[in-house]
């Protein structure tokens, strides 16, 4: 299990993003493929492990648990999940900003 302060993997990053509104497993795969133009395709095993990791950390929760219904399980981001996502965004912004120096040649 990776440390919380470590950068998120692309899989975790995009699953958190997709879960900003209630989404089911297959919906995550479709949305992530769409957002990245097909570059990031999540395999079912990778997605299953990542969802369980996020549930254990309390970064996403099960949504719409209509008991007994055949409705697919949906996931939704939690405030802790949003916080972790925010920290990662800060890191990525810093990365992109520092990366600009390459163009400026300084």
């Amino acid at each position, binding site marked *: 299990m990776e440390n919380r302060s470590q950068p998120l*993997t692309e899989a975790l990053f995009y699953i958190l993003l997709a879960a900003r509104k209630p989404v089911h497993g*297959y919906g995550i795969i479709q949305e992530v493929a769409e957002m990245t133009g097909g570059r990031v395709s999540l395999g079912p095993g990778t997605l299953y*492990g*990542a969802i369980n990791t996020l549930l254990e950390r309390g970064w996403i929760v099960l949504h719409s648990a209509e008991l007994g219904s055949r409705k697919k399980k949906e996931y939704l981001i939690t405030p802790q999940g949003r916080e972790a996502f925010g920290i990662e965004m800060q890191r990525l912004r810093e990365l992109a900003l520092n990366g600009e120096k390459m163009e400026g040649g300084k």
Partner: protein
Amino acid sequence: MIRWKFTFDKDEEEAWLNDWCQKGWAMTKFFFGAVTFAPCQPGEFIYQIDLIPGRFLEANDYEGYVIFMDEMGVEVLQRWGRWVYLRKRAADGPFILYTDAASKIELYRRIRRLFLWALMVEFFCSFSAWSMLLRFPEDMFARGLVGLYIVLIAVVLRAVWRCSWKIQALERQQGQ
């Protein structure tokens, strides 16, 4: 049709199943190394093998896993302890279970833990055979039993080593 397959390498077994499917034979059952095949369209299915997270022989939330895979259009064909044989219709698109280095590393660590545990069990079970051999060095049964344990331990040790080798290669790829 039934074919025998004894391997401790799930990647090798996956490739073997997919080869048979290309030849028009789809795996339907697995029991102690006996693999049952039924005729299919060549390349009709894509097979993958997974080790469900859990402890020892007990899988965590097997029902949840099956439902999850079903939603992905993946059929859980056969369960063998924590091992599962999965397949998806090739017409429904590509089927690769693990698509990034982090989750592949996690998978091979899971497999390695299971093999290490099996190794420990084999090791302790072999004690009685060793002590029998020490007391009756000429006894053919004791010799045979010790020989069998040595082979079993060597096979599982090799499986552990192969997992470590795959993990190392993935970590290098990941730049860790």
